[in-house]
């Protein structure tokens, strides 16, 4: 046999082998086809049935829609920018108009790469195949799934024309951040309808579906730009545009609407709303029922809150020196301190703004509602209220600031210490409150008992678990910023408690009301006693530990209290005007202390109060001053801050105190020393502000003028 015959023989054999294999393959495929077809999903008719699910819409209090769930905003092809259509076709399936559901050449190439180039997998899905996958199949990569997807694509091509297929595809394609379809994506990312997209914008959006998170322009602008470049070069390669047009489009400035890094307005707020709705109606109704939800969110206040928290945390980064660290650990949320803000309408309980962290896209953990961090001295208003109500003390009552030790039954003694580590001796309660003197608060809780303080906190709306220990006076039980804002609102309203709420009304798709919130308050605090505490809290802002608020330029009547916990792990400021109650917390998630480069700790006044002030200045811009209503049985006296007696001409730095009817100021210093009568009731050792107890435990004393006529 000659060489030539051998070749011919081989070729001939190969030809028949291919023929045989092809035949067998066809037979096998036909067999599989009949098996698979019976289980193939039914294709809906018409195809645009995919958009029939009514969307659940969530609205802000202003009527602005802030979230759309589940529904699609389907638009016809003629309302989509031709640039976008070209960009998608060039990028995803440039032979879309020619093939019949499968691009055979591309598939063969992809098959070759997948089989013969180890480690590389190349996709060859046409737009029709992608549509089939999105409508019916999981994202699991198996040959059987691909085969089924291919068959459905063939059916879709056989039954619908190209325009219908393209329209369905463009109206359901996921762009991330909950945006499905080009209309939603264009409005979300560029603030305009899909019909108005220019070439640069169209190319940017067309690049997103490949990996919506990776190419999100808000989070990774550079990556998004690189992807845009690829899309533009594909458009040029396919002949839709010239290379020069591609170049110009790439260099064109992209104007993304200011949305900061938030994926949507009020993301933390919306998470809470969705949780509430799911609890009440179940996930199916929420995501497929087409509810219309009117919330309490004020978009203006929300934007200001986000801005204030982010600015405040950026400044805190500088103070703590975490800015550079953050660059090194760019993806680590733990490298930065976190923050939270809750703003509540005092006279209704409506939650107007909620920020649960530095950046929702980095961490969805909601520190405004889920975080139970120690409030520190932020808890003192409850202590002082309890002391005024239960013991009849007044803001002018004189108490000695001195080292005290509280005997705790069954545990080591508790010796709280002052922030300043010094003791100033006698002072009136208002002074002690404004300076946030721990030893005085400890003496008060020793007298009232921790249970009474807890009861006051509960009356104000604190719902987190609270431990009945003396140290509760110094805020040793965790609470959330939302709770604090809500509880302080009870003081702002003169003792009327309004439950915080997020939803005004819920309607079904036909507008029938499913629920509506009734704004009902109930009196939980005595109006006059509450006012006395409010007056002292005003002192905190005007001349106390929260005076930074005034220095930063917030001038409206307001009251508040700072809070700082052991080792500066948490810094709080909670304050209110007669209308708005706002709590701010900052701290590290891991609970490490916040100290600046010089080793000085960050207090509530330094870390949280500036955020509060920044927010309140903008939030109340243009509002006229509104004073807290003074109850009829309150009178003001100017007193000596040390002796509590009525201030005379020579009194240095007299202090204005609010006194109830029947409450007098001391004529002179006449200290009454009392032994605590309930020190032995506690059963647990408090944990906050620890200090070794002195070897000889001293019973604490309250030095006060007995003022109340009924005591």
């Amino acid at each position, binding site marked *: *046999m*000659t060489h*030539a*015959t051998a070749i*011919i023989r081989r070729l*001939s054999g190969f*030809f028949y082998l291919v*023929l045989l294999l*092809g035949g067998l393959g066809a037979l096998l495929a036909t067999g599989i*086809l009949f098996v698979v*077809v*019976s*289980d*193939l*999903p*039914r*294709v*809906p*008719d018409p195809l645009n*049935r*995919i958009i*029939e*699910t*009514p969307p659940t819409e969530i609205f802000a209090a202003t009527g602005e829609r802030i979230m759309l769930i589940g529904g699609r905003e389907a638009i016809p092809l003629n309302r989509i920018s031709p640039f976008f259509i070209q960009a998608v076709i060039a990028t995803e399936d440039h032979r879309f108009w020619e093939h*019949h*559901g499968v691009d*055979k050449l591309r598939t063969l190439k992809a098959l070759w790469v997948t089989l013969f180039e180890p480690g590389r997998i190349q996709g060859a899905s046409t737009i029709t195949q992608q549509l089939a996958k*999105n*409508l*019916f*199949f*999981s994202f699991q990569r198996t040959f059987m799934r691909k085969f089924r997807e291919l*068959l459905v694509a*063939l*059916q*879709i*091509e*056989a*039954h619908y024309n190209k325009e219908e297929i393209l329209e369905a595809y463009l109206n359901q394609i996921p762009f991330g951040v909950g945006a499905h379809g080009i209309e939603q994506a264009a409005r979300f990312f560029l603030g305009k309808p899909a019909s108005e997209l220019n070439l640069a914008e169209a190319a940017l959006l067309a690049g997103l579906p490949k990996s919506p998170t990776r190419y999100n322009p808000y989070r990774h602008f550079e990556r998004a730009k690189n992807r845009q470049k690829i899309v533009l070069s594909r458009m040029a390669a396919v002949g839709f545009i010239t290379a020069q047009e591609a170049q110009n489009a790439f260099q064109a400035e992209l104007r993304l609407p200011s949305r900061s890094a938030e994926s949507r307005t009020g993301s933390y707020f919306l998470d809470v709303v969705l949780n509430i709705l799911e609890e009440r*109606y*179940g996930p*199916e*109704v929420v*995501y*497929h*029922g*087409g*509810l219309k939800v009117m919330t309490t969110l004020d978009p203006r206040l929300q934007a200001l809150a986000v801005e204030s928290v982010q600015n405040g945390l950026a400044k805190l980064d500088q103070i703590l020196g975490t800015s550079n660290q953050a660059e090194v650990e760019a993806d680590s949320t733990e490298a930065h301190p976190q923050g939270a803000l809750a703003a509540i309408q005092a006279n*209704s309980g409506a939650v107007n703004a909620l920020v649960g962290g530095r950046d929702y896209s980095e961490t969805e953990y909601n520190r405004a509602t889920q975080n139970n961090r120690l409030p520190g001295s932020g808890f003192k208003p409850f202590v002082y209220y309890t002391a005024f109500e239960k013991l009849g003390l007044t803001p002018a009552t004189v108490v000695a600031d001195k080292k005290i030790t509280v005997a705790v039954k069954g545990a080591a003694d508790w010796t709280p210490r002052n922030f300043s580590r010094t003791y100033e001796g006698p002072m009136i309660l208002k002074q002690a409150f404004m300076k946030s003197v721990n030893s005085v608060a400890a003496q008060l809780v020793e007298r009232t008992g921790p249970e009474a303080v807890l009861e006051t906190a509960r009356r104000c709306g604190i719902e987190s678990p609270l431990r009945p220990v003396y140290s509760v006076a110094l805020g040793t039980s965790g609470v959330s910023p939302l709770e604090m804002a809500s509880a302080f609102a009870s003081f702002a309203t003169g003792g009327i408690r309004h439950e915080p709420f997020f939803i*005004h009304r819920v309607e*079904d798709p036909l507008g*029938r*009301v*499913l629920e*509506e*919130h*009734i*704004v*009902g*308050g109930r009196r939980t605090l005595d109006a006059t006693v509450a006012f006395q505490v409010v007056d002292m809290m005003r002192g905190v802002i005007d001349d106390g530990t929260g005076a930074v608020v005034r220095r930063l330029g917030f001038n409206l009547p307001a009251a508040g209290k700072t809070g700082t916990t052991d080792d500066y792990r948490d810094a709080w400021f909670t304050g209110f005007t007669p209308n708005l109650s706002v709590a701010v917390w900052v701290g590290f998630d891991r609970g490490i202390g916040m100290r600046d480069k010089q080793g000085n700790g960050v207090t509530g006044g330094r870390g949280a109060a500036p955020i509060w002030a920044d927010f309140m200045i903008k939030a109340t811009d243009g509002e006229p001053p509104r004073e807290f209503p003074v109850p009829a049985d309150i009178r003001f006296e100017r007193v000596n801050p040390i002796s509590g007696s009525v201030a005379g001409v020579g009194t240095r730095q007299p202090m204005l105190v609010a006194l109830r009817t029947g409450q007098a100021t001391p004529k002179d210093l006449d200290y009454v020393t009392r032994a605590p009568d309930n020190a032995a009731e506690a059963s647990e050792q408090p944990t906050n502000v620890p200090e070794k107890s002195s070897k000889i435990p001293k019973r604490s004393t309250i030095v006060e003028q007995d003022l109340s006529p009924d005591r």
Partner: protein
Amino acid sequence: MTDWFEPKNLNDWLRRVFALRPVLVALLVGCVIVLEMRFDWVERTLGAYLVTTNPARPQSGAIWEKGRQTLTAKKTLEKIVTDRQASQREARSAESFSQIAAGLSDGQGAMLSAENFRHLYLKLPREAAREVISAFELLEISAQGNWRRTYFEKSGSDLIVYLLDADNRVLRRIDVPAGGLLQLEREDSLTVEALEDLPNFKNRIYPAERFFEALVSLPEEIRRNVILNPETLLNPSGQIVQVGISDEAVSGYIELGFEFAIGGRRQVILVQGHEWAVWRLRSFLEERGAALHPIKQYLEDRTPR
């Protein structure tokens, strides 16, 4: 048929390869491939076939699952709305507060207009209405012009009524115990039984003469609170023969039963009195030993020693 044999040389091979049959087969295969590449006939055929099988195939996959969830959601919503509308309808057509309470399940509420509330309020006996909310207060709330709607909420067995402004702010909250409601609205009701047939009254039935003798000996303020609406007792034409005092006090009220002899039959009219006033009257009656039944011993037994 010629047996297959291997060609001996190249010429044989070429003859064999370019014989009619192989050429036709090659052409056929080539045509099939070219036509497929050109006209996608495999895809078209398969697609057309799949279209014919479409109606028989299962509604499975993400889009159908979503459809099912949408359907479930619609049904759930429809039920919520229907229930709510039913309770609203029932509340709107109710003729009394107790009917509203009866139509609501625990935690459920019904929103009615301010007019609805006024309508029901005016149907209450005067004294009972005063207990719910004083007419002056209601007038004041109405005059302020903010009152738009009224929300009735069932809480346990009680009924809570919220008078609301346009922003759903509560202008006034009224708590009405369910038992108290029934009691309030039962006033003026006429029964045909004799007092002895009413279990609550069996222990304290007094001759009318004795009852009124005791009543008139009490101060005017107490008398007014024993029988809140004496006009009610003037309506029947017969004569009062017996008066009973109920064992049960509800929401600060005690029922009094006045048994009338009207011709040959008896009728009992129930009215209400404030518990404290009725208690004073009853003590007075007991002291005088005027009861028909031996209840004095009973009372003595109950007195703590």
